[in-house]
């Protein structure tokens, strides 16, 4: 019989090791799933994890890596700060959409004026404010009426999706687009475009923002009183209150910051890789970032690495879809497995596994 025995203190070794074990277990279980679908599991795993980095077309994929990882990291950093304090913002996807809409709207309002020094910073501000305000809805409802931020933030994602559809069909539709849904392409508007900073690397302002967010979050958590209060609230809410932390202010700070970062990610995406507001603009970065945050142990450096890994599965997954004909649902299941295994192996951080029988309590 297998038993779990609680550890006196969480194991540091396992807390670092579980992400690696989870990745390996995902590869094995995913391989079995691919085999069940009639594909060669070794080739599928190689296509997902190896080819994008070192394969024949790596020169293209490597750039894509940063493009995908940027928004994931940016969003996940914000979410992780809240998660550390036990504040569960599940609606980053909605804040991402609203940030993109607000930021793009600012840019489009200036069209066709050329003044990059003014317009692009204003768009960045617009993106952050859009996400911030959208996250304030669950924040204020929670602090005023004690609603559940998980439900409210999640449901607001679907509201944001409807607004996105309405915007791309109505207010923000390209007047010269022959009636097709979708806004003007911001990449073709010099003052608003978020293009690659160094050709071929995928490095754009969003990636820069993500790296800054990583450093910012690291310093906040380790050195600043706000970060200390966040960690304290997550560890022990009553001790936090005793230490003088105002729980409502903390809720608004965490939700607001994660919303603003998600909004920024949306703006950089719409002005860069996506180029325009369209009905299918969002691709689930806001949800995937939750996985990234946990895969990275809610630690800024961990999130940086986890974001890159998750981006790799995205890119590799797409490659596997086109070259091996794997269904996209299989790739999503594969990504889901990663979180599943991570949470499952997390047990090892707090418990040790024992074999054999002993009197049960």
């Amino acid at each position: 019989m297998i038993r779990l025995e609680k550890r006196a203190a969480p194991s540091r070794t396992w807390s670092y090791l579980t992400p690696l074990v989870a990745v390996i277990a995902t590869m094995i279980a995913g391989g079995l799933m691919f085999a069940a679908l009639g594909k060669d599991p070794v080739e599928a795993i190689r296509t997902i994890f190896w080819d994008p980095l070192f394969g024949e077309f790596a020169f293209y994929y490597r750039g894509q890596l940063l493009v995908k990882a940027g928004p994931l990291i940016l969003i996940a950093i914000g979410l992780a700060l809240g998660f550390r304090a036990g504040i569960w913002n599940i609606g980053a996807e909605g804040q991402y959409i609203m940030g993109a809409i607000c930021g793009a709207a600012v840019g489009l309002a200036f069209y066709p004026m050329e003044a990059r020094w003014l317009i692009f910073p204003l768009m960045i501000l617009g993106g952050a404010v859009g996400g911030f305000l959208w996250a304030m809805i669950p924040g204020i409802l929670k602090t005023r009426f004690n609603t559940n931020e998980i439900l409210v933030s999640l449901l607001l994602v679907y509201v944001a999706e409807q607004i996105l559809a309405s915007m791309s069909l109505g207010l923000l539709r390209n007047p010269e687009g022959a009636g097709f849904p979708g806004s003007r392409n911001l990449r073709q508007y010099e003052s608003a475009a978020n293009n690659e900073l160094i050709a071929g690397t995928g490095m754009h302002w969003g990636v820069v923002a993500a790296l800054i967010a990583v450093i910012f979050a690291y310093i906040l958590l380790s050195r600043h009183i706000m970060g200390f209060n966040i960690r304290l609230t997550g560890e022990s809410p009553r001790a936090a209150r005793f230490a003088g932390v105002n729980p409502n202010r903390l809720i608004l700070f965490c939700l607001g910051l994660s919303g603003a970062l998600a909004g920024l990610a949306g703006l950089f995406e719409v002005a860069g890789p996506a180029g325009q507001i369209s009905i299918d603009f969002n691709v689930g970065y806001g949800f995937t970032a939750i996985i990234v945050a946990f895969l990275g142990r809610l630690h800024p450096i961990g999130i940086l690495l986890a974001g890159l890994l998750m981006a790799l599965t995205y890119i590799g997954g797409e490659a596997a879809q086109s070259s091996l004909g794997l269904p996209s649902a299989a790739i999503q299941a594969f990504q889901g497995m990663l979180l599943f295994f991570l949470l499952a192996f997390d047990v090892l951080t707090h418990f040790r596994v024992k074999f054999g029988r002993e009197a049960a309590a």
Partner: protein
Amino acid sequence: MSRPDLIGIDGLTKAYPGVVANDGVSFSVGRGEVHALLGENGAGKSTLVKMIYGLVKPDAGQMTFAGTPYAPGSPNEARATGVAMVFQHFSLFEALDVAENVALGMENPPPMRALASQIRDVSETYGLPLDPTRLVGDLSAGERQRVEIVRCLLQDPKLLIMDEPTSVLTPQEVEILFETLRKLQSEGTSILYISHKLEEIRALCDGATILRLGKVVATCDPRERSARELAEMMVGAELRTPTARSHAMGDVALSIKGLNLRSASPFGTSLKDISIEVREGEVLGIGGVAGNGQDELLGALSGELRAPRDAILLGGAPVGHLGPNARRKLGLLAAPEERLGHAAAPNMSLTENAALTAHTRKGLVRNGFLDWQGARAYAEEVIRDFDVRTPGPGNAAGALSGGNLQKFVIGREILQKPKVLVVNQPTWGVDASAAAAIRQALLDLAAEGAAVIVISQDLDEIMEISDRFAALNEGRLSAPVDARGLTLEQIGLMLGGAHGMEVAHVGEETAI
């Protein structure tokens, strides 16, 4: 007084990773004997009774019960054999009534109506009146304990294990409990009584086994020993008693005027019209049975609960509306009862826990950034001055023993040089030597001119260190009286008597 043995324990050993909780423990309890198990925190009492109750399996050693080998694999087996246990912390559901709570602990509960009448019978026989239809949430701590005891008695046990049963009772309630236990004893039930209150043990028990660091250090008749002798056997060293100091009272340091505060939780106690003054250099003891508003009073003073602006005056200035850190800045500090999760965050290091309350007064935050070196130095200072046994300030608070963490928590506040310090249960679950050190530190603080409020359920502690005494009963605070010359009886009456309990009428009823 030799009685045939009911339970014999021979060489029980249990080791946990890094610590031997019990090392070759042997003793026996006779039929109808009340046997005390004495020892400091961490001496191995809990592990030992958990093995007897089938919660933990020993690594080595044997037990016999009524002459036959006894090795319970689970509490169910133990109960079937005739062993029952009343835990220190109640496992009751507040939203259910008494009978429902009792039924939840049974394998095959009888129909509710039959169970209710059984509960009535047993409770009357043993002088523990209990209405089976009342909600547990409405019961006092003493009444809740009765639910636990009645739950055990329904199984008709041969051996009843009681873990620190009097920590939640008034002196009168303790007397009633003792009558009940004596009646059980007269009917031939053996009782294994765990406590560190020595006077109680001397009043109640026929035999005592004293544990220290997992080993039996002595077996004796507690009635033939003084409390001091027993304590020294427990601690293994001579005991220092706190020394009283000369009285030099100053101005009023803290005054509370007509404080009313609704409790946030439905089963909490609201504070009702509390008024009191404490002077510089004074130790004010506030006694009361658990759940009579102690947590709320501490919260109202620490600033976790906001009060009307003028209800609390610190040195004449209104502070009722201020939060914890603003009050700390002005010199009003507090140490709550619950060490883990309230006074300290268990998974955070001692350095981080030092910063938790000290960052305001010790200037550990500059432009919003924490001075970790300063926090570490302060944690080291607390560890050194209060003799906290730990490898270092990087250790997690949760890894410390109760007594050591309590010394850290109290030391953290005292070294900030408060003008007023409020502590709740400063020595709860702390071993005798640490408790003495903490009490001495509180007296020293008062001698330096600070006002100290000690909220405690340990009346001996209050009598030992306070200048004045007030009782907290259902959220109301009595007028303070001079603590010198106060008897336990007077205190008991101030605490609200025995909540309408009656003493068991031994011999009046026929046995069940």
